[in-house]
């Protein structure tokens, strides 16, 4: 049957068995080595690049401990929150958020992770609004 199937699977496996004396390294050419090194580096880099579990992806805005809104950090925008003494403007840029203007002093914008999305502590004497960025695992930014 092998005579009728010279290129069939049976013969290929038989040939592979017979070719046991050929060293594996001899099968790799210089370009193969170069490609393998480059691809391996890209694969290694893909882990920290794509598994960024701790990067914040949204900002949580609270007023007097009550949730006002959650702002996605991938869309640049400005958000106004009206409190007892005035309006606080929160500016969102890709990956970060900050208090752009507020009616009092010492605005608080503290980062907190998803598992630590607690109410931010800080000087709230004159600032009714504060925000926290929330990621998937751990805090990243504190503005």
């Amino acid at each position, binding site marked *: 049957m092998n005579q*009728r*199937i*010279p290129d069939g699977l049976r*013969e290929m496996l038989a040939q*592979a068995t017979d070719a046991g004396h050929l060293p594996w390294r001899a099968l790799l*050419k210089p370009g193969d080595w170069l*490609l393998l090194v480059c691809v391996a580096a890209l*694969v290694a880099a893909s882990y920290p690049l794509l*598994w960024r579990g701790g990067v914040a992806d949204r900002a949580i805005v609270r007023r007097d401990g009550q949730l006002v809104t959650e702002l996605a950090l991938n869309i640049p925008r400005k958000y106004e929150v009206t409190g007892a003494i005035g309006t606080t403007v929160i500016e969102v840029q890709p990956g970060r958020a900050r208090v752009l203007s507020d009616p009092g002093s010492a605005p608080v914008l503290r980062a907190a992770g998803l598992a630590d999305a607690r109410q931010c502590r800080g000087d709230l004497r004159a600032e009714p609004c504060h925000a926290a960025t929330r990621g998937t695992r751990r805090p990243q930014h504190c503005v």
Partner: protein
Amino acid sequence: MTPSTIELPVTADDYRIARYAAAAIALTVAEAALPSPLPGIKPGLANIIVLVVLVRYGWRDAAWVSLLRVVAGSLVIGQFLAPGFFLALAGALCSLGVLALAQHLPSRLFGPVSASVLAAFAHIGGQIALARAWLVPHDGVYYLLPLFATAALLFGTLNGLVAARLLAIPVVAAPAENPAP
């Protein structure tokens, strides 16, 4: 009234492609029985056959073998027109596209291992793109990309080495293509 008879001429190329496709289908079926730690991660043993055909007979024959393997293999394992079939088809089409370019790499510097690794990455690229667009319309699918890429590097290298070893063996002269009716 005499019923008409349609005879389809079968060439030697057809027999050769059929033999290679049968070998690839056998490997696909055998591979389906292997446990996988993550759906979608498979050794892709049939790609060894596709690589051998590509180097020996060119891209056209390799495309025939690859696509016949996808269609017939899915029929055999009962996944024809299921999501797995379309994922396999998308991967095969992307890898064939990359192989069409990779075959023009200088053979002095690049061997079957390079073609295999590039095809493996094109394969997972096509599958993830289709999965993102159709099955999992969420960016969360990209979290699996490092794992798929690792598997593509590992299995692409191994398959390329096996194909290179097979190709290093002189081809046994085939007898005249005159199969019994």
